[in-house]
């Protein structure tokens, strides 16, 4: 029988988000498949009761938590101490957690403290012949593997977007508080706040239906022998605004900015998709003016339907990487698309 702990952090108002609810589903299903195991929800945050009430009907045997204003912020020292305390309080052999930036920062250190082993970016879980098997990717989404471990404790961080979010009814739940006092060594870091990328507007939208990726071709010379970077910037931003898409870019385009060239001013490394960038999850993706080279396309692993616009019919997208490749001028296509989208707005 496994002693299972699901670790969650709460947000500003004490509630939990989608990634956390996905982890609830994964844990429920895993415990069900294990048979005879019990699971506990461990909460960390400034306020934790709202989250416990939100999850009252999730099927957990109980709730434990570390609460206090010093645990409201996303900080390694306090999060690692709280997670360690909860794992020890439960005597957990198996610890599951959403792969949020907050817990991903802390869990490696927690594993070290507990003498645990850890696997992150888990995208699937199952029980086979009584053993837990975890699916994850290696080499930046280029090789997929299923692994199992005999070692306990075993920490599994789940990739957001890999499991359906739990959506049960809220209720009443009591939480057993685990007392924890932080020493001065755990408070050397102050979290000052959050800032959006300095690009004038928020263009990275993880929940968007569509990922729109701009490649370096937008900054190259066009048929008239000149570059049209300003128009490219206008077309891309307008298209992203009107379709409410999330904006991504290829590495080459972002690198041009680092080299001081006149390029699309709103793109940063945070927009970068691929081998050294993000691997976002969206139902649809539209690539424009990029060649579909392997290091870029590994970032498209979790994009559902893929389409691309490129002038080169032999580009990487044509070789089984996209569902549809439009051999066309992206400037012309986006101008026409914007006319259609604007016409629809005025209707």
């Amino acid at each position, binding site marked *: 029988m496994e002693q299972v702990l699901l670790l969650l952090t709460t947000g500003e108002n004490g509630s939990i988000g989608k990634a956390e609810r996905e982890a609830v589903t994964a844990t429920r299903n895993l415990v069900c498949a294990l048979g005879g195991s019990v699971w506990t929800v461990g909460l960390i945050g400034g306020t934790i009761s709202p989250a416990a009430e939100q999850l009252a009907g999730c099927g957990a045997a109980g709730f434990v938590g570390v609460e206090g204003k010093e645990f409201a912020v996303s900080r390694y020292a306090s999060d*690692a101490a709280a997670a360690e305390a909860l794992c020890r309080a439960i005597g957990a052999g198996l610890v599951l957690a959403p792969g949020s*930036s907050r817990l991903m920062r802390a869990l490696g250190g927690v594993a070290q403290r507990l003498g645990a082993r850890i696997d992150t*970016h888990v995208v699937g879980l199952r029980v086979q012949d009584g053993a837990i098997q975890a699916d994850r990717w*290696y080499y930046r989404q280029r090789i*997929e593997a299923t692994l199992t471990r005999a070692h306990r404790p075993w920490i599994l961080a789940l990739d957001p977007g890999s499991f359906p979010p739990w959506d049960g009814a809220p209720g009443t739940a009591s939480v057993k508080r685990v007392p924890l006092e932080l020493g001065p060594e755990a408070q050397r870091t102050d979290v000052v706040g959050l800032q*959006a990328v300095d690009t004038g507007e928020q263009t990275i939208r993880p929940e968007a239906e569509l990922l729109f990726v701009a490649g370096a071709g937008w900054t190259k010379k066009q048929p008239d022998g000149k570059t049209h970077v300003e128009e490219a910037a206008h077309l891309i931003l307008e298209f992203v605004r009107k379709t409410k898409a999330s904006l991504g870019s290829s590495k080459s385009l972002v690198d041009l900015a680092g*080299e001081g060239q006149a390029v699309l001013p709103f793109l940063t490394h945070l927009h*970068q998709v691929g081998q050294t960038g993000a691997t976002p999850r969206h139902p649809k993706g539209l690539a424009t003016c990029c060649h579909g080279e392997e290091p870029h396309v590994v970032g498209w692993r979790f994009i559902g339907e893929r389409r691309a616009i490129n002038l080169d019919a032999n580009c990487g997208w044509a070789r089984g990487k996209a569902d*549809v490749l439009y051999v066309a001028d992206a400037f012309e296509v986006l101008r026409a698309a914007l006319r259609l989208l604007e016409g629809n707005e005025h209707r």
Partner: protein
Amino acid sequence: MNLSFHIVVCAGIVPDPLQTLEPVIGDSGPALKNEMLLPAVLDPWAAHALYEAAHLARGHAGSKVWLVSLSPRAKLQQVMMTVAQKAPFELVALDGPAGGFTDSAEVAGALAAAIEAIPGLDRSRLLLFGGWESAARGAGTTLAMVGERLGIFDQFQGVDELRVEPDGSLRILERVEGGRHQISRCAGPPAVLGWATGSLAEPPNQPQLGMQNMRTILPALQRAQSVALPAAELRFVRVALPSQQRQTRIVRDVAAEEVAREIVDWIRG
């Protein structure tokens, strides 16, 4: 106030991103086909960490950079021929597997032991750098474990910016969800920083610097101790290439208006 740092950069090597990778199952578990023949590069995010470390050291007199790498010695030597031209550093080499199918706990143990053995390393001024995830295992856990083993409890991951304030505190920007950065202020070293892309472009090759670095790199490679990573309790049930191969429909010689209409209809679902 002494604003100088001892910066240790942990960096493995990975196959060049343009190479086709194919997994094979050997006696000791999964590996890459012809792994030793594939051209290798310094792990991309760790390389950014190295550039940031060199930049930081350049701005703070008395600082020093070490590069600690657990990699097959022969491959590491090849990679160093290029990396040595990018930034000044002293190499600490460990001879062992650099592949993704190893366990981060074992790798962290080997790296921490190597760092603890660096002569003259001032742990009170230590900044432990590395990539926030490797391009091999990509777990994002090794650096945190090394930090814990070294007793460092201020850790940051997905770092894009580090600024040293006049009072010696560190202002750090980390990537968080939704394309935002979390801003933190840390009292000072020691600290762990797992770098994302940072803000520096790859430095140009400097042959003079390369020759200077190689004087210490070659002896370091000769001294490299062998490290075994058995990962005895980790068992891979399946390792495979993804089978997603799409039947691409290529649309050509169609007016832009028609393409636009098809795309807009597709987006609207």
